[in-house]
């Protein structure tokens, strides 16, 4: 009887919880190595000591189209203060990525990483696209944003300087 009950709850737990937990704030970031659009290897730990904006996006994601130009502005505003943007692209087709960037009408000044297989978003257990993580100088995930709305611009412009001012 007890065994049946235990197995019952175990199965129930496994069925309901197969997707795992999403990456939480207050914890260190999960390191990864990836290839950039320029063909160079990058490792996230190499950026420790800077405020990192880790963004997950795709060319087919509608809110990403609104978010991306804003990320360029955000990076331009704070790059001299130790702010970096790492944009992880999950498109399976490189041409779509290139088309997206060409349509922006401007160069992308920050690092864009290619992850066709979706290993990095799987590592971070994303709930939606786009999702972004704001990581402080010590490598702790301080903020997590799911989706992108115009009101997020104000939030980002408060969070980034706040973290840049911390040691």
């Amino acid at each position: 009887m007890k065994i049946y009950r235990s197995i019952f709850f175990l199965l129930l737990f496994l069925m309901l919880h197969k997707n795992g937990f999403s990456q939480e704030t207050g914890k260190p970031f999960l390191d990864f190595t990836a290839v950039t659009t320029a063909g160079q290897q990058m490792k996230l730990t190499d950026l420790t000591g800077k405020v990192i904006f880790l963004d997950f996006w795709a060319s087919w994601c509608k809110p990403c189209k609104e978010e991306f130009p804003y990320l360029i502005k955000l990076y331009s505003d704070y790059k001299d203060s130790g702010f970096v943007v790492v944009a992880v692209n999950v498109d399976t087709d490189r041409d779509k990525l290139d088309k997206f960037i060409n349509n922006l009408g401007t160069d992308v000044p920050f690092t864009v990483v290619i992850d066709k297989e979706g290993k990095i978003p799987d590592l971070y257990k994303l709930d939606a696209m786009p999702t972004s993580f704001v990581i402080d100088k010590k490598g702790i995930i301080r903020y997590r944003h799911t989706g992108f709305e115009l009101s997020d611009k104000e939030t980002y412009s408060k969070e980034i300087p706040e973290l840049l001012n911390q040691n």
Partner: protein
Amino acid sequence: MKIIKYIFILLALFSIVFSGCTTVQPWERERLSDPNMIFDENPIQKGIYEHYINIREGSEGGDGSQSGGCGCG
């Protein structure tokens, strides 16, 4: 006791059968987010209409259409 046995067997069967169903992760929705995945003559207009309904009704889903994955597209 018998009922528990039946429930256990049923649940075991469910866990075997439905383990074949996987969740399409947000970063895997490239094809699903295509307007062609909407069952309508004019998928783009339908998408706009559904977005409008979602805002008005505060409801979402159940109609087969997809978006970027965040629910705000």
